[in-house]
């Protein structure tokens, strides 16, 4: 009866593993969880059996079309390799570590991870300041001398430096871009507007929205739009007209010009 209960619990655990694939912190965490089903000391774990469990798990996850991160698949490939090394008699011509050495190392890694988790739990279970023991609650009110102490910690220092260096690296570039209307953008905008511009229209009307407030931005937008109109005239897609020098420039889409 006890066995029955165990097997039910085990099957439940196995199902939980499948559903909770995202809950693992990487392949090592998954391996450690799987290793618990062997119910032995981690030092006596069967790595071969563990490799099979892992590969089985990966297969099931794939069958259920669960997306697995690359590192899970890398581990699967490595464990498949390890499995073959453990099962086949050693090839004397091949150098490199034996399957047993690799298996022992993996077992040790799992034991170490488990040990660190236990250590972390023991650490957090200790008496903690502000929870189990306390510092003096009342600051001493002695007003004899005053000294100003500048407060700055390492994090402030590193953040300040990081702020400076990122500004150096990137900000001028970003700044320049924001006020420049690229020729490509002007070409694209004009091309889109031409099919609906069969009558003469002032070039100024084609400037993009939000670019006519600041003088710098307006100049950039005007220049690019003008250059784009010249380019389109060269391609025969637009007609340009100007009544006299410095008069407003007018343009008009050409019939059928858009195709050729």
């Amino acid at each position, binding site marked *: 009866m006890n066995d029955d209960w165990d097997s039910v619990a085990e099957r439940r655990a196995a199902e939980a593993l499948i559903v909770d694939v995202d809950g693992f912190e990487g392949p090592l965490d998954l391996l450690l969880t799987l290793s618990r089903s062997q119910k032995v000391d981690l030092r006596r774990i069967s790595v071969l059996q563990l490799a099979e469990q892992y590969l089985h798990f990966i297969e099931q996850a794939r069958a259920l079309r669960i997306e697995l991160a690359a590192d899970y698949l890398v581990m699967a490939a490595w464990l498949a390799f390890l499995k073959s090394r453990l099962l086949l008699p050693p090839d004397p011509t091949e150098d490199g570590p034996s399957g047993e050495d690799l298996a022992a190392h993996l077992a040790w890694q799992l034991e170490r991870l488990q040990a660190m988790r236990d250590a972390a739990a023991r650490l957090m279970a200790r008496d903690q300041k502000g929870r189990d023991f306390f510092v003096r609650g009342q600051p001493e009110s002695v007003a004899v*001398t005053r000294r100003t102490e500048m407060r700055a*910690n390492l994090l402030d220092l590193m953040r*300040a*430096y*990081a702020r400076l260096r990122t500004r150096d690296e990137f900000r001028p570039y970003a700044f320049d871009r924001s006020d420049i209307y690229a020729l490509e953008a002007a070409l694209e905008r004009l091309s889109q507007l031409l099919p609906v511009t069969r009558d003469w229209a002032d070039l100024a009307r084609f400037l993009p929205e939000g670019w006519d407030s600041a003088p710098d931005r307006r100049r950039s937008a005007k220049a690019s739009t003008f250059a784009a109109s010249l380019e389109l005239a060269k391609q025969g897609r637009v007609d340009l007209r100007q009544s006299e020098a410095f008069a407003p420039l007018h343009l008009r889409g050409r019939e059928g010009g858009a195709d050729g």
Partner: protein
Amino acid sequence: MDSARADLTAPSLADQERMVEAILFACEHPLSSAEIAARLPQGCDAPEALARLRQQYTGRGVNLVRVGDGYALRTAPDLGWLMQAERVEQRKLSRAAIETLAIIAYHQPATRAEIEEIRGVAVSRGTVDLLLELGWVRLGRRRQTPGRPVTFVVTDAFLDHFGLESARDLPGLQELRAAGLLDNRPMPGATASEEDDATDAPVRGQSELFED
């Protein structure tokens, strides 16, 4: 959680004294006898425990004193002169100062002109003076270039304050980024930084630029 509370018998007087001692030590303000009694387990005698504790601290460096209708632990009045150094006002270092300090720490020995070039603004005399005064920065060797400008380096007091063993232990740009200290997303096409201390920085920098 604790047997003392669940127990129907009151703690011993010695234990009550310990409890009152801990409560008074940790509390931010003086507590009245009634307030102390309210914190103690059932059946305790707060006035008696207070009297014993007061006796215990008589003639010591710390005394149990009455403050209004409350009780508090205070350093003995005759030892006030020992506490002078405790009167410390903390002020946050200005942004200009912390940036200047960071540049000196990362680029030492650094001249004023170099600091200004990296910060992009003039460094006021007061900023460097403050850092000198704090003992975090000192004058280094003069640079052997025209004008022989003064250089600045960080001091042992700086290392001590920031818990560093040497200025070379400061993390490089890439490490700062890996630690999540660089929030700004790098823009594609930005030039790799010229870092003296991390030779692999530009290479890793490039790959990181195109990662996301």
